[in-house]
């Protein structure tokens, strides 16, 4: 089942104005791209403070940190491992000076990186994206002015490509198959955006390490007001309270979903989490959404925070491993507390993304439809050359609200209640027939039953009898119904015979406590019909031992005519009861009596079977004699044929 855990704190952020202002704070925190659902280390570039690495388990703690000057803003940060070495690469901006920094540390060594070891190179403009490729020992940097530059770990410029658009705002490096890809979004004037997709082929320095796969200009796409995220071939764009989904590589719009829950929220963020599923936060609420089904798989309010924004999520790609994929992952975000001068902290939320199937979404849809849910039965053909004009097929229409109000006014008097009920709903018989199929509003039925049960105690209106026969008798009214009606034998029996959805537990307890043979037959029939043997056994196990003993006593000692006639069902129930509690749970005396009783029954059965054979033999011999006698037999009057198909015990 999909779920979101309560958040836990990774670290408290320094009390810097920029980090506490939830309008910008996400821009000042750059989480390295290397996180996976299983990773234990997270590297975060915290502007004006440090580049810090944390471990999550067993307890979240800071393991390593490279301080940066307090005037510097981290604009991008990435970490990758290469030959026992961890390469940290981060881009800083101080005023108009932009630098690219690389630090390396020996893997698993805890002694940290010396800030003197950090290599530094000046770049032309703010770095929007940084990607460290540990395998090929390359760093790819995307600059805001539209340059894509390739460096080695010594920060030697290897290659540079101008994408010919400036103002690059979104970059994303991703791997698909064995290849690395990169896409960028550049803002153009008049709310246009250029989408460019590149393939990176890094080891080839003789050739061009990058090639452009597609370039598309999208109109009516304001990057400034949108939140963008990417996962497995889909680009999600949140604008206002609408999510637009684009399919790569051509960046075509495939879906638009309105998210009603982010409406009116001040702080909104969005991150992908698994295929078709995204996380959305609105103020301090976090939602796990399935965009195929348009359902809220899980939601949680982080009450100790005023706002929570997502920074980075560890995406589960469910396309890769289809057989029981891992469903557990986590997401890192920044939370800001309530109060005038709030502190912000890095928070981790554990996520179970679920299976992505319909079963997770069942009943959790969020689509708001403009059409009211109508419970009114409509005719199939409106044009009506409908010749079905006879009584059976007449079409009826009720205003259920009005009828309910009418009934409510008359809740004091049984007779007027009944009169209105029968007249307004045009009920001809005391019980439900197919003519009453137009009374199908479940809400109305539920309201009326509640109204009756609340207002009448000693005597119930006839309407209740009718409702008990209605196949849509509301489920929420059935618990404790039997105990209420116990004083009214007619209604009690009616409920047992016709009322749907009676709880098994109540039925069983009624059965075990009742002494009336006829009713016990009805109840046992009802139980056996509505519930499977498994369910019955499970429920019997929960019951009181005394009750069970009473029931056994009742069955084996009853001489009642009716009980004997219904013995088939009762025996079946008895065997179920014995199965579920086990023979040894009974005390010795009862066990003896039970054994005697069974013996007796077996004797009867044997006798009957012998008799049956006897009859069979007799018939056979007659048939034989007849054929042997030949023509003599044919003149004799034919023996009337009879068979014994079934002998009662």
């Amino acid at each position, binding site marked *: 089942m999909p779920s979101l855990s309560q958040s836990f704190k990774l670290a408290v952020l320094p009390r810097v104005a920029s980090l506490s202002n939830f309008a910008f704070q996400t821009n000042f925190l750059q989480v390295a791209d290397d996180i996976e659902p299983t990773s234990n280390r997270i590297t975060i570039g915290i502007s004006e403070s440090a580049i810090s690495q944390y471990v999550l388990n067993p307890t979240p703690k800071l393991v390593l940190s490279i301080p940066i000057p307090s005037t510097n803003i981290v604009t991008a940060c990435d970490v990758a491992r290469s030959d026992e070495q961890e390469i940290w690469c981060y881009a800083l901006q101080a005023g108009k000076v932009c630098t690219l920094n690389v630090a390396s540390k020996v893997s698993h060594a805890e002694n940290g990186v010396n800030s003197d070891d950090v290599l530094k190179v000046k770049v032309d403009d703010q770095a929007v994206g940084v990607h460290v490729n540990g395998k090929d020992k390359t760093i790819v940097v995307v600059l805001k002015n539209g340059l894509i530059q390739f460096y080695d770990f010594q920060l030697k410029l290897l290659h540079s490509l101008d994408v010919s658009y400036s103002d690059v705002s979104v970059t994303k490096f991703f791997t698909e198959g064995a290849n690395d890809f990169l896409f960028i979004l550049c803002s153009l004037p008049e709310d246009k955006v250029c989408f460019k997709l590149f393939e990176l082929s890094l080891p080839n320095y003789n050739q061009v390490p990058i090639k452009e796969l597609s370039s598309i200009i999208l109109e009516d796409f304001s990057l400034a007001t949108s939140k963008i995220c990417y996962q497995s071939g889909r680009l999600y764009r949140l604008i206002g309270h609408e999510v637009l989904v684009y399919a790569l590589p051509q960046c075509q719009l495939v879906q638009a979903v309105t998210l009603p829950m982010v409406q009116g929220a001040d702080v909104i963020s969005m991150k992908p989490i698994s295929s078709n599923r995204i996380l959305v936060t609105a103020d301090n609420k976090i939602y796990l959404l399935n965009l*195929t089904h348009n359902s809220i798989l899980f939601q949680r309010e982080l009450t100790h925070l005023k706002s929570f924004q997502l920074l980075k999520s560890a995406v589960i790609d469910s396309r890769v491993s289809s057989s029981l994929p891992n469903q557990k992952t986590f997401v890192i975000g920044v939370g800001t507390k309530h109060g005038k001068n709030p502190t912000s902290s890095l928070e981790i939320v554990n996520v179970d993304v679920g299976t992505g199937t319909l079963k997770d979404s069942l009943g959790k849809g969020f689509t708001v*439809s403009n059409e009211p*849910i109508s419970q009114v039965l409509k005719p199939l053909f409106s044009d009506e050359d409908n010749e079905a004009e006879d009584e059976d097929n007449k079409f009826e229409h009720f205003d259920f609200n009005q009828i309910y109000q009418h009934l409510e006014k008359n809740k004091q008097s049984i007779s007027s209640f009944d009169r209105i009920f029968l007249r307004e709903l045009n009920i001809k018989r005391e019980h439900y027939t197919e003519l009453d199929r137009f009374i199908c509003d479940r809400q109305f039925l539920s309201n009326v039953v509640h109204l009756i049960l609340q207002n009448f105690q000693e005597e119930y209106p006839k309407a209740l009898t009718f409702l008990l026969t209605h196949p849509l008798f509301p489920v929420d009214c059935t618990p404790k119904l039997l105990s209420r009606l116990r004083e009214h034998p007619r209604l009690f029996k009616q409920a047992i015979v016709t009322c749907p959805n009676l709880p098994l537990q109540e039925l069983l307890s009624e059965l075990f406590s009742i002494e009336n043979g006829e009713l016990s037959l009805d109840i046992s029939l009802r139980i056996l019909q509505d519930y499977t043997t498994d369910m019955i056994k499970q429920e019997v196990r929960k019951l009181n031992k005394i009750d069970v003993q009473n029931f056994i006593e009742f069955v084996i000692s009853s001489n009642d005519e009716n009980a004997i006639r219904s013995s088939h*069902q009762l025996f079946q129930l008895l065997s179920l009861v014995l199965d579920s509690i086990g023979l040894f749970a009974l005390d010795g005396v009862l066990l003896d009596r039970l054994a005697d009783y069974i013996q007796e029954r077996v004797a009867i059965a044997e006798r009957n079977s012998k008799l049956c054979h006897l009859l069979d033999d007799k018939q056979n011999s007659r048939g034989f004699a007849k054929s042997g006698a030949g023509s003599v037999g044919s003149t004799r009057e034919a023996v009337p044929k009879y068979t014994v198909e079934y002998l009662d015990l």
Partner: protein
Amino acid sequence: MNQATVYQKYKLSVVSGGKPVLPRSANKSSCNKGIACLTHDELNYIVPFNNQIKVYSIKTRQCVKTLKFANNQCLSEVFVSDQATIAQISLGDVTSENSAQRQEDRELTVFTNDGRIIILNYKGKLVDSPKLLQVKLDQGETVCKVFISDDNTLKLLTSKDSVVEYTYRIYDLKIQDEPQLSLEETFDNVILSTWSSNDRILAFLQKKDNKRNIQLHSIFDDSLRKNFPLSSVFASQNQSSSSSSTNSKYVTSMAIDRMGEQLAMGFASGVINVITVSDLQGRLLKWHIDSVLSLCFTEDGSYLLSGGWEKVISFWQLSTNMQQFLPRLNGVIIDCQSVGYDKYYSLALQMTENSTNSDFQLLLLNAADLTSKLVVNGPLPVFDSAVKNTIQPISAVATKASTTVTTMNLSKKKQKKKHLKSKRQDYTTCASIHPVTKQLYFPHMSAIQVYDFYKNEQSSYQYLASGVNNSMGKVRFELNIKDPVILDVKFTRDGKWMATYEVEYPADDLLCSKDLVHNLKFWDKEENDSQWNLRTKVVNPHGVGIPITKILAAPTTINGSQGFLTADNEAGLKYWSYEEYEKNWCLTKLSLPNFNHFSNSVSLAWSQDGSLIFHAFDEKLFILDFDTFRIFESNNTTNEFNLDSEVQAIQLINNTNLIVATRTTLNVFNLLKGGITNSFDLHPYVNGVYKNGHLDRLISCDEKTGIVALVINQKVKDEDGTPSADYKSRVVVFDNDLSNKLGCFTHPEYISWIGWNHDTDFIFLDTECRLGVVGTTVNTEMSDEVNKEGILDDLQNGTNDFASQLQKLSSTKSTNGHAKEDEEEEIALEFINGEKNHKLINMNSFTSMLDNFQNVQMDTLFDRVMRVIT
């Protein structure tokens, strides 16, 4: 007929199927039943169907021309609106003055039972308004046969049904401007009639004053007039009175040779009596052991052909009494004729094992080597109960599959009464469409018929269960033996596996007679193989004596779609899957039944991602989790729903809406909202009409777009308001949440089944075996819902669409150099044109399109071409 009310998108047309017409099969007094005819050059064979006339080439065994009634206004008026049937087909335009102008090589004259004469051309494009003439007939009189002499004189033979006997009349038919009839002779109290193959001599068996007489009559002149009592024939046999039962006296068929010299009579007991007309001496030919149903002399009069229940045609050499056989025909031989101057034998067979419909098959045999030249039949559905106008041949013994001498008149009346009175009129049938080949599979008793809707031909017929009928005909008391019956057929989504459910019946009058055996069989098929091979057979899959009520194929996400779900009538469910390590189908999951509650109202649906199973049992709907195979446990949603009456059908649409049809209502249940969003009143149309669970056959869902088609059958009242046995039906096409009707069509016949063809159309079958289509010729516009489905598809199938697109992109790009300006332009252009312009067009691109070229309308064709080239 095309009455789209809301959108013009969907259309209904009846384009395929139908059954061969044997107009005189209903006339039990007529011995010559078949009316199919050879063309003058003996290269083609013209076969009338109830919805078209088909011309087959004998050489290639293929249909070379179809004249569809629905496609021509005049013909559709005559045959569809007025429900006339073809009574006779003659080559050439018989109305023309002299025989030289008759143009036998391109025109034919069709006589209908209600006296219409239509001239059609069977070469070239059918003329828009063919010549139509009307002959005025008496009330109740139907055209039986038109005799044409060499000098173009026309004689019209009509018949009129009275209670037991028939009245025949011969008219002289003169056609100048208006057809003129003048009565020549009337024959009353006719029991049997026949005529010689050269249309010169008529023979009648008449009953007068409790005596039976035989009357011979030459048609165009008075050369032969002979009348003699039947008893004189018997007398000449010196038959002992002891062996004469009713059967041995009851004449079931008759034939007369060209010269009027020999008359053959077949009796219900199986004996054939050949009488020399000149001296009334007869001789007996004994081989048949049940009623002789068809007789004919060859043109030269040296051979007599006889056929009956044995499914064997027997050739009697009359000079030597030597006999030859052709056994193992597909059905009981109800008519045989020698055509084309003894070049061919034309047989009409009836597959009597299906008692719910008259399944006719026409067979053309080469007379020289008795090889079959042509086999012609329509779809062979088995309806739930016998449809009107179903006739079973006469047998010596009364059974379900036959009528006897005594029950004949009774049963006909009874059947008619039943059709008029009874409320439960379930003529639905079971059929399935193969998801890949799109062929229709009809379970036909122990066999399965594969019918190609687009080619309009049967493509194969395979026995799936072993029974007596498979190899030979059943006679007399053997007719009581019940062969195994295939009740359901389903395919996996990839079309590689077929699952069938059959019931075997033990012999009668045994203690175990009621213990039916239920079999579940799994079949696969080699590529290019026409036959399915049995891989796994499960006897009594749900326990002894427990039937399977529903079979459902697994969605593609489950075990590579190689799985089936079966449900029984006790709410038990079993999941079968093909397991690679066992190389066999295995029972992998099951949920136990509730042993105390039985119902046939069982429906199943499965979510496309495979996670949830919806199981409707009686009036409850359960949601099961496929992983645990138990009722889905969830804290905030209910997993069990009560409906107002027994659930008849459920369909899951677009993974969000569950359509639940009960006996009284049609509901849309929104799974994401957890409530009913729309409901319709079905009670007037459905309640008590169909057997439990059979409404499922009349609801179908297009799984790609979520469009739903629902069939409503209604009885038609006469003009004066009395109920008749006729039906009309309506097909309603809904969008995916039943909020909009996309179309509502009427069809003048009861529709027995509708199914989605795994493309954009719905195919339906009516009780006349005609196949129709309700579909769009243009793809629906891409709405949000459609797109959503697309997303779901590529994530489910595991086929990584995005990755492959990426791969394609990266491989097509040149590997060196920057993306230059012109390249960029190219990319932009590529985007505009869509990414499919890499598709190669070669000579094979269009072949799939030409497969089913016949029924294609112009806009469909255009659409198909566009689909190939874009």
